[in-house]
């Protein structure tokens, strides 16, 4: 018998429950991705999840830990998230590399669940983006946009996934298009105004919201992501602090600058719905392990993410800043936890003792 301290009752929450809640919340987004990219999405999802689980299993085995941990849901979640932030155009080896990187370098080398300083999926995505910029910024034309394109049948998708565009007698240019963010960035660089660029792209806010624009697998539908995110918030699996402060900061910044000069700065609604912002705000930035743990720290974290995302999107080389922003803020998490603490009962803010 060991010394056991109170409390002798437990609320019943567990790591598994938390992880599987998030996985369930991502199912709508995964379904939308299948709707947009057909079999390609299915292959990518299964590859990422399967490789993540396998890598986790072998990593645990080789390190002499309990292999049951594979089923705590965290590796599966990492795989799922990873698939959702990858473009549908990535070949199989890149997906495998990303999944192995996420689990091994992103998580297990740091001591496994709970110790990774960066979000594993995002870390892998950043590595891919920097190593293979072409693949990572080419977006396959969604199924509904060009029905004549022979890309989405099981066989063609399989060939494309494993052998690349040549195997299906296609060229990159024919099957890919720019995402709204990428298109805007290029056009702005050539002196076109925001409004014109969006008109040229046939951009529609409604489409972006319900999910018909090109992008990474999971970025398509803001609606599906919001459904999952709000459900998680209602269940208290994630707290409201990060998503709300993140999106709010984004909206305020974008709105402010859009008012100042609407020709150069995109409107807030565009920023909110474009790219991986919603996915990042609800599912990436809220990764408990790599974000601050106090409510007030989370708000600071969210604001930081918002500012960085907007700055990178607007001024940087990369059209999408959300992933960089979250990884950069992950770095600041220990400091936020150290310097930004909740006020302790009976103490004045700032003075702890």
């Amino acid at each position: 018998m060991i010394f056991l301290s109170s409390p002798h009752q437990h609320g019943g929450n567990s790591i598994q429950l938390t992880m599987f809640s998030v996985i369930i919340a991502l199912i709508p987004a995964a379904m939308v991705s299948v709707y947009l990219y057909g079999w390609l999405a299915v292959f990518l999802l299964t590859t990422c999840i399967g490789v993540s689980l396998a890598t986790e299993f072998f990593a645990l085995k080789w390190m002499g830990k309990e292999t049951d941990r594979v089923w705590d849901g965290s590796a599966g979640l990492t795989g799922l998230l990873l698939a959702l932030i990858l473009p549908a155009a990535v070949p199989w080896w890149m997906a495998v590399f990303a999944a192995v990187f996420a689990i091994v370098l992103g998580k297990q080398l740091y001591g496994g669940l709970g110790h990774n300083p960066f979000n594993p999926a995002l870390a892998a995505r950043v590595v891919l983006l920097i190593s293979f910029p072409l693949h990572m910024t080419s977006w396959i034309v969604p199924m509904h946009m060009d029905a004549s394109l022979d890309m989405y049948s099981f066989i063609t998708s399989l060939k494309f996934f494993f052998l690349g565009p040549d195997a299906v007698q296609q060229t990159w240019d024919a099957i890919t298009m720019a995402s709204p963010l990428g298109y805007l960035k290029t056009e702005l660089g050539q002196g076109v105004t925001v409004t014109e660029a969006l008109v040229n792209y046939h951009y529609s806010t409604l489409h972006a919201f319900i999910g018909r624009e090109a992008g990474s697998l999971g970025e398509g539908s803001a609606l599906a992501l919001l459904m999952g995110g709000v459900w998680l918030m209602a269940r208290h699996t994630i707290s409201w602090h990060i998503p709300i402060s993140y999106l709010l900061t984004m909206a305020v910044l974008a709105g402010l600058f859009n008012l100042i000069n609407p020709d150069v700065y995109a409107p807030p609604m565009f920023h909110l719905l474009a790219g991986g912002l919603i996915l990042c705000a609800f599912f990436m930035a809220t990764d408990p392990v790599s974000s601050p743990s106090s409510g007030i720290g989370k708000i600071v974290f969210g604001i930081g993410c918002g500012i960085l995302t907007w700055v990178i999107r607007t001024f940087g080389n990369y059209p999408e800043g959300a992933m960089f922003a979250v990884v950069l803020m992950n770095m600041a998490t220990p400091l936020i936890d150290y310097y930004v603490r909740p006020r302790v009962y009976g103490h004045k803010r700032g003075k702890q003792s």
Partner: protein
Amino acid sequence: MDFLYPVLIFATLALIIGTGLAFASRYFYVEGDPLADKVDALLPQTQCGQCGYPGCRPYADAVAGSGVAVNHCVPGGERTMLAIADIMGVEPKAIEEEETAPVVAYIREDECIGCTLCIKACPVDCIIGAPKQYHTIVTDHCTGCTLCLEPCPVDCIDMVETPELLEHWSWPVPGTKRAVKAEKRKAQHDGKIEGTDA
């Protein structure tokens, strides 16, 4: 003579800077060694000499002054070692000797011959007695340094583990086995009774 220019300029500059630094060094001169005080404050003050120095302060001076290893304080244990390593900014080093439970010295009074040798050896003056009288140890003040064991000509001093007090009891680290501790306590309790009987 062109090559002299740069040399001259360099020398002049160096001279100016050197003079400046000389004045600065006088202004910012540090007296004594404030680090030794900090280290000394961390030591358990048993004055036991197990570190190889004649007391806690000399060891503190040695650690702070000449960079002697931080792991020589046996009674201080790992915690003291870590604290000193932290202050000194060096890598912690494991203590070679095994950590033991805190002990105090106990004189079997019926065997004591009243030689006062242990009284002289005690670094904290916690043995009382007079020549040809039994000596006894004020256990509240005993640091458990064992320095009194050696001088005793009749070996009547034991080191006994300090009993666990209810008011000083504190929670062990989670996962600590209960039974082991209870058994140990029981054994100790029995041992003490035997000890007093003998």
